[in-house]
């Protein structure tokens, strides 16, 4: 199926926490099958037994729920809110999910993923709302607010700088036109369609350029890592 048909721009209003908020997963299930198969996708799963065990108060089921979703919830919270107090936020979110399941707020167990997503999104909204109010309250006292630093900690910034150094070398090794194409896409966030139209490129040429640059970036990163390991061994 052509990728252009994967995304339809449809506005949907926010729904209360119930199964209606979950995705049109049947449509999405047909998409990207070849790539999914190649990527070794996790097998399809029924959530009903797990949800029933959680409702019954089974602690092993709660452990299984945590094991299944904790990494994804942590990842989402970190992307949206930064790494500050991450474990506390994860714990709070997980608690809300479990309590809501035990209160029978999840009517269709097979919609568990949509349900968890909704809870996580609402938690993020609540944290942001709280941070904004706290910052407002403290403005007069000139105390720093609790707005998370989404730029990351010094270690993360150092990693970005290191990768940027590699990227500079990659960009230095391609033509000015190719550099312009990639800059339009990654820096100015122009769409593939616009870039291809304005720069007389086919979709294939565009994708090839992107993947070559990424491959080169990956190779140079690995080489740098390997050089680092060799130096460490010598020490």
């Amino acid at each position, binding site marked *: 199926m052509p990728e252009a048909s994967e995304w339809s721009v449809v506005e949907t209003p926010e729904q209360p926490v119930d199964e209606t*908020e979950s995705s049109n997963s049947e449509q999405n299930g047909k998409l990207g099958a070849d790539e999914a198969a190649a990527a070794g996708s996790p*097998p399809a*799963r029924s959530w009903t037994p797990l949800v029933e065990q959680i409702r019954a108060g089974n602690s092993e089921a709660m452990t299984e729920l945590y094991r299944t979703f904790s990494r994804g919830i942590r990842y989402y919270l970190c992307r949206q809110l930064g790494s500050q107090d991450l474990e506390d936020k994860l714990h709070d979110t997980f608690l809300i999910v479990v309590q809501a399941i035990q209160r029978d707020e999840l009517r269709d167990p097979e919609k568990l993923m949509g349900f968890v997503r909704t809870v996580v999104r609402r938690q993020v909204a609540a944290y942001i709302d709280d941070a904004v109010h706290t910052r407002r309250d403290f403005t007069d006292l000139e105390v720093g607010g609790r707005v998370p630093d989404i730029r990351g900690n010094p270690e993360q910034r150092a990693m970005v700088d290191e990768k940027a150094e590699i990227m500079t070398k990659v960009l230095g090794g391609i033509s000015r036109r190719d550099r312009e194409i990639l800059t339009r896409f990654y820096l100015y966030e122009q769409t593939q369609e616009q870039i291809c139209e304005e720069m007389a490129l086919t979709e294939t040429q565009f994708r090839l350029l992107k993947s070559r640059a990424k491959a080169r970036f990956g190779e140079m990163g690995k080489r740098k890592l390997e050089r680092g390991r060799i130096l460490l061994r010598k020490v």
Partner: protein
Amino acid sequence: MTNNYSHCLTDTQLEDYAFGRVSPEAVADVEEHLLVCSDCQDRLQAEEEYIAAFRVAARTAQRPVQWYKPLAAAACLVMAVGLWLPFSSTKVDSVDLRAERGGVLAPAATAVAGHKLELRVDLAGLESRNTARLQIVNATGAPLAETRLDGTSVAPMWTLNRKLGAGTYWVRAYDSGGKQLREFKLDVE
């Protein structure tokens, strides 16, 4: 039973999600999958790190080279005189911003730094698109000036009120809804 747990996300889906281009309806599919698939989480993180590294590198590459600073101390007076003269000039340069023709990419327009510029913007082919305004931005995308169009001309003239320093600029044409219709590159030297 239907859920999206069984299919990993394609590279394009991850890219669109990283850029925030996924529709509200489709984003639920993506985020639900990301809740449970560690492979896709890793791939998304790698994609975002790649984009972040590119942006830092691209912005750094667009900054002027500073290796001449020690020499600039000795040549400061000469440079000051050399810079003053162009900026005191009332000369107006005409610059043609042309769109591509027949699939051949039009080269970037060029102009001289410090000169007053009159831009002739090629809007041929956009007659039905209601081009409403032009905007000029610098290399980091920061808007510098803007002008409204009456939509009657396919080659409107725009005299910039400010003089541009050396660098790369983009002149963009938008319709009344804010959608970008065309873009022209302007190298000022």
